């Protein structure tokens, strides 16, 4: 397979975006917006990025490649680890097959080489 899907980096992850996301999701968990709450849980001193933000970074990477946000046909993910404010999330997708206008790939989001999301995706491609 000669073609590759360009990787993308997102970040440093902003605590301000986490506040927007907490309000959108009506998520009362303070680890996303209150550093004191994070410290009390011995999770360090940086807010924890919401999983859906990390997942969306992966989606952005895939749909940048297709140049069509409507191209996603299937996404399967597992959350593996937390991302904290200030981290840079590296998103990559490895093309595994392409047939009948559908591209299948393995996807990974990672921070400093450690996976935070793993999974797979299928995209429709226009030719």
């Amino acid at each position, binding site marked *: 397979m000669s073609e590759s899907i360009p990787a993308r980096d*997102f970040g440093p992850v902003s605590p301000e*975006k*986490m506040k*927007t*996301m907490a309000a*959108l*999701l009506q998520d009362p968990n303070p680890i996303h917006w209150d550093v004191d709450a994070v410290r009390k849980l011995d999770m360090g001193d940086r807010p924890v990025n919401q*999983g*859906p*933000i990390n*997942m*969306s*970074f992966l*989606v*952005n990477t895939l*749909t*940048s490649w297709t*140049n*069509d*946000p*409507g191209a*996603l*046909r*299937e*996404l*399967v*993910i*597992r*959350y593996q680890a937390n991302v904290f404010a200030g981290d840079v999330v590296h998103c990559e997708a490895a093309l595994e097959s392409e047939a009948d206008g559908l591209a299948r790939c393995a996807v990974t989001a990672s921070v400093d080489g450690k996976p935070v999301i793993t999974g797979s995706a299928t995209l429709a491609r226009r030719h």
Partner: protein
Amino acid sequence: VSEDFQDRVGHRFPGGTVSVPHWENWLWCDAVLADHPAHRSEAAARELGYPAPLVHPGLVYFACVRGARITFADIFNLMDFDENDGPMFGEQRMVFAEPLLEGLEYEAEGEITAVLRKEGRRAGVFDIVTFEIRLSREGRPVVASTSSFVLPRRHLSPQGAA
């Protein structure tokens, strides 16, 4: 009521309709650094052949949950689970027949499809509850979402387990 919660399988959520307004999609895209113009502009969406801006796929999962008229707290209650015991997202799968578009109304329905009890040496006893939500428009399937929560059952775990 069964101890292994198998009687929860098949529990149907109320269901209903859902639409994603422009402001919500805009703020989501801003928060997740989604820069494709077809998420925000009708003209850019039309260039790709869509009649309205596309809802970001990350937000679609939450549109499914909202449309099915469930909250995560409802699922924890149904599973007799205390949120303070540390629920975790399990696998999430979304299948799109077509993208979700801003401002359109979709029908949502869903149910619990599986409850699986497991025991790990480090994790102790936990249940995996899986639920499926489907969105459709005018009878056409649009999105199917299957996702799960991992619910640690600390009171059933050997002392010292996570």
